[in-house]
């Protein structure tokens, strides 16, 4: 029977994948052709969604973007037998965007049926967990340390060090918490993985549990991702039935349980201590550190709290060895990073590559420039707290230290592209406004500073004593950076100051109005 693959990923559904799947089933039935329709996650090549794949002689041939109205034409063209059609893309794996990637964490995403544990295992799943179950906890932690894996949520803290602290902490109860509160604009890798390969996250969390001696885990998913939440809940249930979770995982005698929890619309809950407060049932206000969550985390117990991508990368490290992972990358940035190209970009999508390729290669070679066809003027890397950079910095290699050295950050890997219609003064104002909306209110520099920052930027934009007011903005940024309790207030100056420093012409409103006259 011919297998046809149509994504059930929320992004693919948002441009009509469900209607396409229904049309294919209906058309095949009408023509008396037996077709097995497999609903996968997305490959992450979003400009091609809905991307339909047909398996021929073990090779998957792509057609995209396909609208429901195109389906009859595809059948007429004999697409099930590889017939020519304007939407034909050839073998999907050979599409240069995909062929040039190094997919380790996303190796199965878009390929497997995310609801099938058997499919997961057939594509290399559970190898890491089986290996971990045969290892001493300290050896698992050592493998993660040696791989060089750092926190993919943005802070880049070495994962193995965090795990070692929790392993060494005494206590009758420990927790593994997955931070899937992916609030940064321009990022969607967590969502993509939960919807395309959820067992990979479950396996990673089980390995973490075995490594540090925790028997309970939580996945904290933002409520803006209802589809991912349902997928994750279903996968957890399937994993429980399949013996991947529960009192005796894979017959090892080891226990690990998992619960998916929904956030409630608060960006700050992506900050690890605010997330823990939220899980405990309180306002998502950050905690003072120390104590670190590794010592006193969820319900006061030693807790591993990692970003979703970090945890989902662990199975491949255990399966293929720490060295294999560490061999990718440059400097202190080891392994691969799933970059998400977003905003005004022609070929928006997920690019998982070893650290080291440049920002310019990402935006121009993978991204293909802007969607509008106008010149790229700015990119914001690392979410709403990341720096706005001009194309002059496109030679920066993807590397935590290289980005930091130039006043930016890799963050969670979101790259938002803007064309030459962007007004960086307005973007700087938005950075303050966003901070004001999402501040948890615990510390004054963030709570008050963000409001004053937006007001002062309004004056600059009006051309009201711009020079004096920009000096005030810089002072305010210094206070927020040095005085805030967490990264929300502490990093809001990054987009603001980078915009002022790299795009000063947008802040000189007097000159602009003269030019307009």
């Amino acid at each position, binding site marked *: 029977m011919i297998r046809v693959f149509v994504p059930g990923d*929320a*992004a693919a*559904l*948002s*441009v009509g994948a*469900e*209607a396409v799947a229904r049309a294919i089933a209906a058309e095949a039935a009408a023509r008396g052709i037996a077709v097995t329709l497999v609903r996968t996650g997305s490959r992450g090549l*979003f*400009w091609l*969604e809905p991307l339909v794949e047909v398996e021929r002689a073990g090779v998957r041939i792509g057609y995209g973007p396909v609208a429901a109205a195109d389906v009859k034409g595809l059948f007429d063209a004999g697409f099930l037998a590889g017939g020519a059609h304007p939407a034909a893309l050839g073998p999907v794996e050979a599409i240069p965007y995909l062929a040039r990637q190094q997919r380790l964490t996303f190796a199965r995403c878009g390929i497997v049926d995310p609801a099938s544990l058997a499919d997961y295992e057939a594509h290399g799943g559970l190898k890491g967990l089986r290996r971990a179950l045969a290892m001493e906890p300290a050896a698992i932690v050592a493998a993660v340390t040696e791989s060089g894996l750092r926190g993919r949520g943005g802070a880049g803290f070495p994962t193995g060090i965090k795990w070692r602290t929790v392993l060494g902490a005494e206590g009758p109860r420990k927790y593994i918490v997955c931070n899937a509160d*992916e*609030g*940064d*604009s*321009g*990022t*969607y890798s*967590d*969502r993509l993985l939960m919807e395309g390969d959820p067992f990979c996250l479950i396996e990673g969390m089980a390995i973490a549990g075995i490594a540090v001696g925790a028997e*309970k885990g939580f996945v904290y998913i933002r*409520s*803006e*991702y209802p*589809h*991912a939440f349902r997928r994750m809940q279903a996968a957890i249930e399937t994993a429980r039935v399949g013996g991947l979770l529960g009192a005796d995982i894979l017959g090892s005698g080891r226990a690990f349980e998992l*619960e998916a*929890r*929904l*956030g*409630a*619309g*608060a*960006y700050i809950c992506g900050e690890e201590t605010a997330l823990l407060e939220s*899980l405990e*049932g*309180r*306002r*998502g*206000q950050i905690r003072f550190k120390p104590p670190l969550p590794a010592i006193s985390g969820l*319900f006061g117990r030693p807790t591993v709290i990692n970003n979703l991508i970090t945890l989902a990368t662990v199975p491949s490290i255990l399966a293929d060895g720490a060295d294999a992972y560490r061999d990718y990358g440059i400097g202190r940035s080891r392994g691969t990073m799933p970059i*998400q190209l*977003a*905003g*005004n*970009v022609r070929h*928006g*999508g997920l690019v998982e590559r070893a650290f080291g390729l440049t920002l310019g290669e990402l935006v121009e070679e993978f991204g293909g420039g802007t*969607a509008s066809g106008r010149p790229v003027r700015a990119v*914001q890397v690392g979410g*709403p707290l990341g720096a706005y950079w001009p194309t002059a910095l496109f030679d920066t290699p993807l590397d935590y230290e290289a980005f930091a050295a130039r006043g930016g950050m890799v963050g969670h890997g*979101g790259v*938002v*592209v*803007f*064309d030459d219609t*962007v007004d960086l003064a307005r*973007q700087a104002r*938005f950075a303050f406004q*966003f901070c004001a*909306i999402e501040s948890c209110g615990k510390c004054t520099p963030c709570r008050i500073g963000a409001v004053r920052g937006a007001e002062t930027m309004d004056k600059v934009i009006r051309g009201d004593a711009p020079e004096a007011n920009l000096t005030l903005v810089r002072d305010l940024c210094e206070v927020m950076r040095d005085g805030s309790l967490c990264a929300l207030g502490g990093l809001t100056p990054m987009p603001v100051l980078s915009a002022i420093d790299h795009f000063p012409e947008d802040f000189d409103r007097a000159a602009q109005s003269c030019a307009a006259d």
Partner: protein
Amino acid sequence: MAGPAAAAEDAAFDAAAVIEIAEGLRGLEGPLLPILHAVNDRLGHVDARAVPLIADILNLSRAEVHGVVGFYHDFRRAPAGRHRVQVCRAEACQAMGGEALVQQLERRFGIPCGQTTADRQVTLEAVYCLGNCALSPAAMVDGALVGRADGERIAAAIAGRAP
């Protein structure tokens, strides 16, 4: 649009449902958010009269529950319209004309973001990122994502025609 106070007085309040939900979920570790989500989903909002009931069952003070309800954007204090339209105002959508889309929707529905139409058909809300940033601008209609959103596609989604 009716204010929260008016809605609270007008609407019948299903105390039994709140108690049933809270009793059913109290055994969870950290049960308050799951309970508030369940109440919000089933009754359409978290009525002020639900707060003391939940507080009593969880052995918390009213202030502790009230503070949590007020902190999170998701928990409504008054019922929303029949359809919930969330439109993204974050950077990746701004880069693709998201702000123009917001203004277009505000004109179309005749309400600013954050309000409900007089016929209570549509609640328009701002959201900061829906994770559909490669198909921006993005919106969500009744929990379903709309990519490359425009007024027509959003209206179609409200009318029950999937994207």
